[in-house]
């Protein structure tokens, strides 16, 4: 043992003159910038999707209703309440937050004698750290759930323009799984869907590859799932939690993926009529569109006898005669309707009520009548020369029916909705076949970003060679004798007046003449109610030119209901929702009637 070993420990004494290293005031020590302290939640950004609750491994988070936060489109109205008796500050809730509303402050000291104080709703129960900018937040994008939509294959513009083949390929299995995987199953979309389809449930079936189970879920709420999988206006995707930091889930394509992946003959095994006794009651449905057929489907499944009267050649209504084949192939529609027929629904085509049969006859022969005739009459701009214009809806019907339609080299379309795009693109195809070039001009009052048409419809129309002139108001359809030569438009300065009424203002100096040998008006449709007959029209109650109905679609006549575009918004999924509503109302009435008889 050396002397050094005895002496060297004494060197420690030099530290007696050191300044103490202890933090003098530990209570006011600020934590690091990215410290994970108490939560903050931005009420303007939170949508109450509950992903935080879902991921919390400690069960520390409850989604609870909060005063002042109401459920609405894309917001459940619930907010996370955090129990700090369980929270472990792992911040997975922050990482998974779909909107980035949930963050953590760097505040970590808080003393309270009441343990229940440590269970509160960040952002609602005010805390001193609510506005603290420091603390943990995600460094970059959300990594825990996918943010990018799986690509969808579709035909190139050059390939699709010369024909009416379906454009969209549908997902491959890999794409569908990637897309389905991104869903966080919050269910905010369910409220937005007019038919309240169980979207998260069927998406999970895509993920699991259980397409047959998925199809059964689809048919619980929508007998037009195949059509909706292709041409739905997919309002659900506008409230998807994933859209806040990334792409919304391609809900429509996933629905289509299910319907495409179940062999057609299997539909009849999977979607069977429930085993219910026949009631012996009869319902007549006027119009074989989505609303009428949904009503028929529901009522037939309850054991009623349903007959559908269709004025045109084939059933399907606007889905067949309004929507071009390249968006919804006819064989898909035929199959879809055959499933509905397999419920025992009888469809009588070429039976125009008012001609072949009258309302009075229907009233007598049936227990209830449902009017779902849709909007098959085009509205007119009534500008000079408009009597020479074609109605888009009329043209579309004729194209579907295989009738010869005039195809001039130049066509001008008035309107910025989906029907305008449909007719523009249909005419473009016919032109391509006839002249090997496209000459379609689309004019609308709105600016391009305010068009009513789906963004992808606009994009595809442009890809196919249609030229769009936004913010232009039609003034005259120019004629040379009997022949149309063009469309004269002015620049739109404003569409509505100060009180929000429709009163377009134009810049007359900015005039254009779009040369065209055909002008098509696609500015909206109305229904042809002449079938009702004078007597019934007189008896019914009306509201601003529309048949007055109650919340369930019943008119002022106890035996008559109205459903679909004739009463509500013009798309398939609203019509389906309407059909369900009316079917339930009719079913109730019929049940009451049966009880009385017994």
């Amino acid at each position, binding site marked *: *043992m050396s002397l*050094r*070993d*005895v002496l*060297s*420990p004494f*060197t*420690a004494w030099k*530290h007696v003159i050191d300044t103490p*290293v202890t933090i003098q005031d530990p209570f006011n020590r600020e*934590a*690091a*910038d*990215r*410290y*994970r302290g108490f939560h903050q939640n931005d009420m303007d950004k939170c949508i109450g999707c509950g*992903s935080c609750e*879902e*991921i919390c*491994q*400690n069960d520390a988070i409850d989604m609870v209703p909060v005063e002042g936060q109401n459920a609405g489109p894309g917001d459940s109205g619930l907010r996370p309440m955090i129990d700090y008796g369980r929270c*472990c*500050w*792992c*911040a*997975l809730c922050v*990482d*998974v937050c779909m909107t980035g509303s949930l963050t953590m402050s760097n505040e970590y000291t808080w003393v309270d004698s009441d343990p229940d104080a440590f269970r509160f709703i960040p952002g609602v129960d005010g805390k001193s750290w609510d506005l603290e900018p420091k603390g*943990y937040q995600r*460094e*970059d994008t959300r*990594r*825990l*759930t*996918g*943010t990018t939509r799986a690509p969808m294959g579709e035909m190139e513009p050059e390939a699709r323009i010369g024909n009416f083949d379906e454009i969209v390929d549908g997902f491959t299995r890999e794409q569908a799984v990637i897309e389905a*995987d*991104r*869903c*966080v*199953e919050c269910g905010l979309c369910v409220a937005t869907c007019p038919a309240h389809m169980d979207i998260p449930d069927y998406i*999970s079936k895509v*993920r699991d590859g259980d397409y047959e189970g998925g199809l059964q879920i689809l048919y619980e709420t929508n007998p037009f799932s195949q059509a909706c999988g292709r041409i739905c206006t997919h309002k659900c995707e506008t409230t998807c939690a994933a859209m806040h930091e990334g792409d919304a889930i391609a809900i429509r394509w996933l629905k289509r993926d299910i319907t495409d992946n179940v062999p057609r003959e299997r539909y009849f095994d999977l979607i069977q009529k429930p085993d219910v006794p026949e009631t012996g009651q009869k319902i007549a449905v006027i119009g074989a569109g989505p609303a009428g057929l949904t009503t028929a489907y529901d009522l037939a499944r309850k054991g009623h006898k349903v007959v559908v009267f269709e004025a045109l050649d084939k059933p399907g209504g606007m889905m067949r005669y309004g929507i071009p084949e390249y968006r919804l192939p006819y064989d898909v529609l035929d199959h879809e309707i055959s499933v509905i027929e397999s419920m025992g629904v009888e469809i009588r085509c070429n039976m125009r009520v008012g001609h072949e049969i009258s309302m009075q006859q229907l009233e007598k022969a049936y227990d209830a009548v449902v009017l779902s005739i849709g909007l098959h009459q085009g509205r007119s701009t009534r500008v000079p020369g408009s009597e020479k214009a074609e109605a888009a809806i009329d043209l579309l019907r004729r194209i579907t029916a295989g009738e010869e339609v005039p195809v001039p080299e130049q066509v001008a379309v008035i309107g910025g909705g989906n029907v305008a795009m449909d007719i523009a693109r249909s005419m473009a195809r016919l032109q391509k076949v006839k002249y090997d070039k496209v000459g379609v001009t689309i004019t609308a009052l709105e600016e391009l970003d305010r068009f009513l048409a789906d963004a992808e419809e606009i994009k595809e129309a442009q890809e196919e060679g249609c030229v769009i002139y936004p913010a232009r108001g039609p003034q005259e359809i120019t004629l040379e004798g009997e022949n149309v030569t063009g469309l004269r438009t002015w620049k739109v300065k404003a569409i509505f007046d100060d009180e929000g009424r429709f009163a377009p203002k134009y810049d007359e100096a900015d005039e254009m003449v779009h040369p065209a040998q055909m002008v098509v008006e696609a500015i909206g449709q109305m229904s042809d109610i002449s079938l009702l007959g004078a007597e019934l029209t007189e008896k019914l109650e009306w509201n601003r030119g529309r048949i007055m109905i109650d919340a369930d679609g019943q008119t002022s006549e106890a035996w008559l209901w109205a459903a679909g575009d004739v009463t509500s918004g013009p798309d398939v999924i609203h019509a389906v929702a309407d059909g369900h509503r009316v079917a339930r109302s009719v079913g109730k009435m019929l049940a009451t009637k049966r009880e009385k008889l017994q």
Partner: protein
Amino acid sequence: MFSFKPDRSQYPEPGPDGKLEIDLETGKYLKLWHGPNHPGITGNMSVELTVCGDEVVDGKTHVGYLHRGFEKLMERRTFIQVFPIVCRVCVPEPDFNEYCYAAAVEELADIDVPEMANWIRTLILEMGRFNSYMMAMGGISGALGLGVVGQWMTYTRDLMLDRFEELTGARIYHMFILPGGVRAHLPEGFEARMEEVLQTAEKYLADAEKLMFHSSVFKTRTKGVGYIDPALFERYGVTGPNARAGGVAKDVRKDSPYLVYDQLEFTVHTETESDIYARTLVRYKDLQETIQLIRQILRKMPKTGEVMSNLPNVLHWKIPRGETYIKGESSRGEYGYYLVTDGTGYPRRINVRGPSYTHAMALLEHLIPGTNISDVAALMVSLHTYPPEIER
């Protein structure tokens, strides 16, 4: 100087297994509970000693004071939900749990980790090693009554915790290494602040060296005490510094390089005496090496790059059936995670292989008979064991 030479002439004959037949009724023997609440014990465990005079004739390790059933809890959490609880298996060096779990999941789920994340992970692990060694140095000094070193080491560890706090957002349970990468880049100016900590640490370590390795008291208490025969290493699964003190240069970082250790230069220090002094010295040298490694990592690591890859939706993440074992060199030896998946969204089984499992159980029980009561604490601490690894 003092030496302990037990007089065994009064003892009964040992039994066929070499152990004494202990009859407490004779009054010769005394049961002594060393822990679970004792300054000379690491964490919540206890050693049931049977003593005769001040000689320990038998020792049994008792654990279970902080059993929380982690491995079982993990089985009913989704793969992402396991992430926040793994770190709790080991308080002083939690990052190995995070790394091993993340790497196991990444392997079975086939997820790539960005290069940058691997560097940050390595940095974190070395920072954790620094902390753990600081505790070990302070612990062994404390166990021998040298409290001042314990205070210095705790202080420098606290400075490193400040760095952990600014990097990871937490001091103890960092929850920073997610499957797929890490949560964030280094904060602005991190390197400079780290350098300050390392320099402070070096200053205190220089002082500690004088108080420990150049102190006659420390040497007397530790040299030749707690000898582990290197022949026992494989039989008892001894790894890490405990093996390196006996001349076996076992180090997973060298033997089976993971993360970016193949791009780093470092020495695996060994000693030959295999006693408490040698084990402490190996740790001291390895701690110095760690300080250099942290500098080296900060110098060599890329300055930009992604730190996290995109995961599949973690809310319904399923991993195909499979099993794997991921290991790393913790401050105490081989640390590993055995993960078995069955195709569902939950792990079928996770087994944590902590070095203390063997060191504090079979090995300690083997070493204890024949020691002096006052040396038990030093012996235990010199094995550097953390009980939560035993009972998980």
